[in-house]
């Protein structure tokens, strides 16, 4: 996973709520067996509309997505995270996220930032007024900055540490392989196996 400490970039205002993962990447794109090549599937149906915000050339190269609430609801497809990252996004800012999407993001190093709706709207308005305006997302300080304004956001210490170090969860867990073995020996005898 790519480490995340701080990121400064331009932002795309996506003024929609309930942006479910079927919109982020439609199911037809999930047939791939690799982890790459998903950038063209990002918002594939919406991008067919020339007026869709991502088709506006002034937002090309933006790396922060500013969405309405309940971003990433629905399907557990991690392909949604891959598509956003491969398109070039490092951060998504919204008032609420689907739980599974948010989890998937932090496994991959895409930072989901929760800020109150009015702050997201303030950022969206700024990016609409001036598409070249840059926003800084500072994970070390847990802060989003726009010009002289700053808003702090919450993220638990452990996830923040893992993101900042770019650590692989599996490697961390395997350090506790002995604990897992001990637990396994004490499981209830009637629990099923698939054999």
């Amino acid at each position, binding site marked *: 996973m790519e480490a995340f400490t701080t990121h400064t970039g331009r932002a795309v205002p996506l003024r929609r709520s309930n942006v479910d993962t079927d919109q982020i990447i439609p199911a037809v794109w999930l047939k791939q067996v690799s982890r790459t090549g998903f950038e063209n599937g990002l918002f594939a149906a919406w991008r067919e509309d020339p007026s869709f915000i991502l088709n506006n050339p002034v937002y090309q190269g933006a790396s922060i997505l500013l969405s309405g609430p309940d971003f990433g609801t629905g399907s557990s497809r991690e392909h949604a995270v891959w598509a956003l990252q491969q398109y070039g996004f490092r951060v998504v800012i919204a008032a609420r996220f689907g739980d599974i999407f948010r989890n998937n993001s932090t496994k991959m190093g895409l930072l989901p930032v929760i800020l109150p709706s009015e702050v997201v709207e303030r950022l969206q308005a700024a990016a609409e007024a001036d598409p070249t305006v840059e926003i800084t997302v500072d994970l070390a300080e847990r802060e989003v900055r726009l010009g002289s304004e700053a808003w702090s956001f919450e993220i638990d210490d452990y996830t923040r540490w893992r993101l900042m170090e770019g650590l692989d969860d599996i490697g961390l867990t395997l350090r506790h392989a002995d604990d*897992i073995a001990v637990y396994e020996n004490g499981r209830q005898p009637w629990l099923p196996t698939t054999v």
Partner: protein
Amino acid sequence: MGRTLAEKVWEQHVVRRADGEPDLLYIDLHLIHEVTSPQAFDGLRMAGRTVRRPDLTIATEDHNVPTVLGPISDPVSRTQVETLRKNAAEFGIRLHPMGDAGQGVVHIIGPQFGLTQPGMTIVCGDSHTSTHGAFGGIAFGIGTSEVEHVLATQTLPAYRPKTMAIEVTGELPVGVTAKDLILAIIAKIGTGGGQGYIVEYRGEAIRKLSMEGRMTVCNMSIEAGARAGMIAPDETTFAYLKGRPHAPSGEAWDAAVEYWKGLRTDDDAVFDKVVEIDASTLTPFVTWGTNPGQGAPLGSAVPSPEEFDDPIERSAAERALEYMGLSAGTPLGEIPVDTVFVGSCTNGRLEDLRAAADILRGRKVVTRTLIVPGSMQVKKAAEEEGLDQVFKDAGAEWREAGCSMCLGMNPDTLKPGERSASTSNRNFEGRQGKGGRTHLVSPQVAAATAVTGKLTAPADLA
């Protein structure tokens, strides 16, 4: 202070707890399908890791499979299914491939085999894993990185979600189903209402539901944003499990039941949030919009965006009506439908097919109607009862098992602008095919709609 059911099951599975870290949670059962697993197996290979507990893992083919006999014609879909077969063989995982008597939708086969039992932790790279919570375990969907994690370690690091009780008081009126209940719950609390929670469904109406109905309710917990939904096990649960291939037997059965009886929320336990809903006031419920929270009683009309005070909900409603091609004020019962789909992990079990057959018996459908059993075993059982003949006589299509029209990954899709009444779980834009319009309904409403060609409650059939 007492503990909730969710807390009891969680605590039983904590492998390791340390300050400032998520709990390391043991996973009792890992379900696999072809869509969210290939990159996870690749990850294992690249890191030189193995599957820790293939004996706690089971795989099936469901999302991509066509529901008519024959090979998969789409080469990309075929590659994905073949990749699962190679991975299952390489890592020693039991697989139920297309054509196998045990094949079916991943959330149908777990309970059917008796692999889903009370008090277990169950995960799958699929958000509708919440289905399995109907047996009183904690079951939730995960992404591919977590699938790899569970394959490698049989654990997951996770913070325990908060607990929510949804108290369903009263009795469901005749003709009102588990599907109507969960659609009404989602409309009440919203698609984000359950975020950060494990929901426990409680109360008289829940206790009276069959296991199939309980699975329908828990299945759609994710549509309210909840990580998991669960129902305390009781005699209904035990009766469903007894004698299934992987359920305990003999003395082990007695010991298990003894333990399972303790899997209930203590009387003095406190939930972080409590929501109440009176089942006796409910009527058949359908969705009109593009998220599962945008629903209303079938007897009402398409709402006007102005009815929503919250500006975000209002603009979402405006957008949804435009996508759905609906006007405010149109009675929901006058909306014409092109296609009816009965099936999916939400409503693809035998009880659902019986309910649809009861309505279609002696009647004719006027829409394209797909009846898709959730598993090969459900198909066989339905055929033994002659349900297939009822459907065929009515003019409906009787298909092979699979996810089918629940999501646009296999040949069963809507065309742009086509409208469905669907017993599945998501009415998102394009979910059933690009440009398709979906109304979520119960199997009973789906069947009645197939007869009239517009959204219809069974009670309104002549």
